[in-house]
């Protein structure tokens, strides 16, 4: 789709929330293959950020300047100054000429605030009957409606970020719910934490990292996969899946460079398959990731930055390792806000984590564990206990939900794209 974003932003200051909202919107549209033209006022100062895009398609962003307007906060249309009347004509001509050929136009607060009244009048006057307009309203409509709050045709929709204010917005714009739509704001870990290009590319290849109910990133050198009890982690994830959760287990493995190490990897890959985990979807070795030339990129390991960024996407960390002198990956996972399940059989764990987090026995070098009913049954039952505790954990629930609900892929696929289709196909 070819989309125009019209704004009156005069400076790209992320402290101003609309700038952040527009920035996320552009990122999402570019990542999903749309063509975007950002319209900024002539008197815009400074520069806008560069949008590196991880997509291999060829979406692009360009810029266009809108005629500038002296800002004034109008209360009524009748107060419009002569200069602003001339500005309306100028902007109307500009929009009619420059928006031809676009599929959608997004505006931000143009139809709402008194400051944007000249723009609002120009939008209504522009001769663009086929164009679809989505007008974002970024505040709660005050009880007293303004006399320019109306929509010229069914091609115009008011967009608000929540359902709750939909009735009041319908009343304010004297329209029906069909023309007032809800699209939540984007709040995506990738943009909020400015993830590196390589992490974004990795997530694009393995979207379950962003979308699954339970995500773990487990760093392990390939010569220590057995000692780290990767088998127990895989079986636990298999149990979560059988209990109905979507899962994603990422083994951030290092030194997958020799034949012996590659054989070790294969052994656990087969186990994951037997446990019902889909390879490259629900069970991922970072060393499998290939670069644009088809060769393995991360055989020696992923960068520290990439590791900590992936850990921010994780919400769970089970640490059944048999032997550690400290286990630095544990504190790293904890600092990322993960729900921790530690190995009760390894006494060092209770010291490092001061008995916080959930503890369960996995056996260790100092305390062998034989499980009468077999590991599969044992871990299936424990998966139930863990799910019960996680369900009680407000932080786990809220954090996981925010990751899945408001990332730009979900928002695009659940809200933007369906509404675009509705506008185009059901017109």
């Amino acid at each position, binding site marked *: 789709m070819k989309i125009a974003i019209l704004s009156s932003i005069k400076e790209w200051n992320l402290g101003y929330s609309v700038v952040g909202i527009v920035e996320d919107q552009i990122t999402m549209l570019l990542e999903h293959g749309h063509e975007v033209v950002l319209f900024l006022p002539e008197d815009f100062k400074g520069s806008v950020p560069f949008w590196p895009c991880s997509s291999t398609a060829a979406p692009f962003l360009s810029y266009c300047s809108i005629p500038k307007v002296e800002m004034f906060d109008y209360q009524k249309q009748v107060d419009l100054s002569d200069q602003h009347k001339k500005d309306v004509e100028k902007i109307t001509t500009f929009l009619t000429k420059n928006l031809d050929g676009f599929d959608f136009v997004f505006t931000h607060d143009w139809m709402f605030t008194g400051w944007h009244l000249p723009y609002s009048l120009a939008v209504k006057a522009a001769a663009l009957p086929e164009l679809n307009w989505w007008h974002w309203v970024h505040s709660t409509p005050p009880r007293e409606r303004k006399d320019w709050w109306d929509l010229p045709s069914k091609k115009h929709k008011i967009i608000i*970020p929540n359902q709750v204010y939909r009735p009041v917005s319908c009343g304010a714009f004297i329209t029906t719910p069909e023309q007032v739509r809800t699209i939540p704001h984007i709040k995506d870990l990738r943009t*909020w934490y*400015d993830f590196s290009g390589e992490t974004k590319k990795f997530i694009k290849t393995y979207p379950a990292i962003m979308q699954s109910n339970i995500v773990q990133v487990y760093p392990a050198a390939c010569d220590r996969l057995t000692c780290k009890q990767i088998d127990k982690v895989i079986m636990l994830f298999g149990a979560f899946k059988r209990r109905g959760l979507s899962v994603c287990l990422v083994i951030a493995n290092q030194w997958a460079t020799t034949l012996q190490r590659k054989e070790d990897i294969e052994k656990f890959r087969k186990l994951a398959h037997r446990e019902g985990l889909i390879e490259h979807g629900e069970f991922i070795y970072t060393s499998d990731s290939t670069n644009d030339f088809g060769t393995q990129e991360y055989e020696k390991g992923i960068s520290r930055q990439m590791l900590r960024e992936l850990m921010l996407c994780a919400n769970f960390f089970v640490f059944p390792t048999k032997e550690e*002198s400290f286990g630095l990956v544990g504190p790293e996972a904890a600092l990322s806000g993960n729900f921790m399940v530690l190995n009760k059989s390894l006494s*060092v764990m209770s010291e490092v984590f001061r008995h916080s987090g959930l503890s369960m026995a996995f056996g260790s070098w100092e305390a062998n564990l034989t499980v009468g009913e077999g590991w599969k049954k044992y871990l299936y039952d424990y998966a139930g206990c863990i799910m019960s505790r996680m369900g009680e954990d407000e*932080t786990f629930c809220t954090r996981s939900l925010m990751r899945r609900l408001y990332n730009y892929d979900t928002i695009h696929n659940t809200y933007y794209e369906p509404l675009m289709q509705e506008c185009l196909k059901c017109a």
Partner: protein
Amino acid sequence: MKVAILTNFNDFMPGYSLTGIVKDQMTMLLEHGHEPHLFVNQQYNNKHDGDMPKGAILHKSVPFGHLVDYHSLSEVSEDHKKMANDVRDMLTKELADFDLAFTHDWVYTGWNLPYALGIQKASSSLPELRWLHWVHSLPNSNYNWWNINRYGRNHKLVSFTETQRRHLAEKYRGTLGDVRVIPHIKDLRTWYDFDPDTCDFIKEYPAVMQADVVQIYPASSDRLDSKRVNMLSTIFSEIKKRGFSVCLVIANQWANVEKVKVVCRKYEKFAKEQGLEPGKDFIFSSFWKPEYEVGLPKRILRELQLCQNLFVYPTRDETFGLVGPEAALSGAFTVWNNSMDLMSEVFASKGLNFDFGSFHRDFEPGQGWDNYLSAVASLIISRMRENEAVMVKTSVRQRFNYDSLFKKVYEPIMTESKTWLPTVKKRTL
């Protein structure tokens, strides 16, 4: 103090865990006014020098050799015996005026045996030097060079945990007195490569890193009333009254005019009356540096949010409240305003909910606001303590940050180390 950190690094890649540990150690020492010198292999490649903390001094003087994973002292080759002499000469020459030497795995692995022998030979020539030897794995074998008695009184082994202290002492044929426990550093500032300005902020307001309960509350200065900053102050003072250390940072924007500054001072005054200390546990970010009166950059804000563990959001008026999802993504324990219908939509009724009133639903607690907010504080504490994710994160933040480890562990051991010297005429602490 002048501290030598002895490694045989050929490279400085923080992805390799030992490099990360050494990097954190140097950062900590520099931050606390000490002078760390990193000793690396003569063939060190300088490729990743940019990753090294600024101020650390590099010495490419550790003798190079083709190393072998020895299993016994008797296997040591003539070449490696000669190498041990080279190590002795280097240490004697280079460490003459140092106070402390930290070694990493030198007295442990078979690969490093020539370095261990070099230390034994140099020790008597360096009587004023105190040594701490890190052992980075669990010693499960019984090698015949694992003997702390061969090094002297001014040498101690380092275990990361009390749990393994006795084990390490036994493996090295020593006593508990030969082993000191020093946990690893895992600090949000270095793990997430915080911006230098964020580190400055934490230095100015250390409670952000150290307090039991921390919240970062972004708010435009013209919306402090609507965001209910006073209500939040009361909740935090109630938490403080219950014996917890607290830190509430108002990350405010647009405080660049005098009129707004006066308003902020009024909020500070209210917080002080409630029992909070402005500038210590109640902080307006705009009063930190003039350049941030208009607001903190996104990066500093999200980094500070990673330090928080609580986010109470009593705001009266929002259309979405983007700061809520931001706080939730940082892993904070979230408390929403039940009086605002959109909160249950945006947050899908997850997290804790209390009525705080809103623009569309008035709320007046029957027992009065003070009693009500006091009860809210109690409930927040009770629920937070039940919350595994928050408790682990808070514990790791408070205990393993480099300021805490320096003050509670390193500095006392460094001071005590002066008493290890057998030949010191005047022992001064």
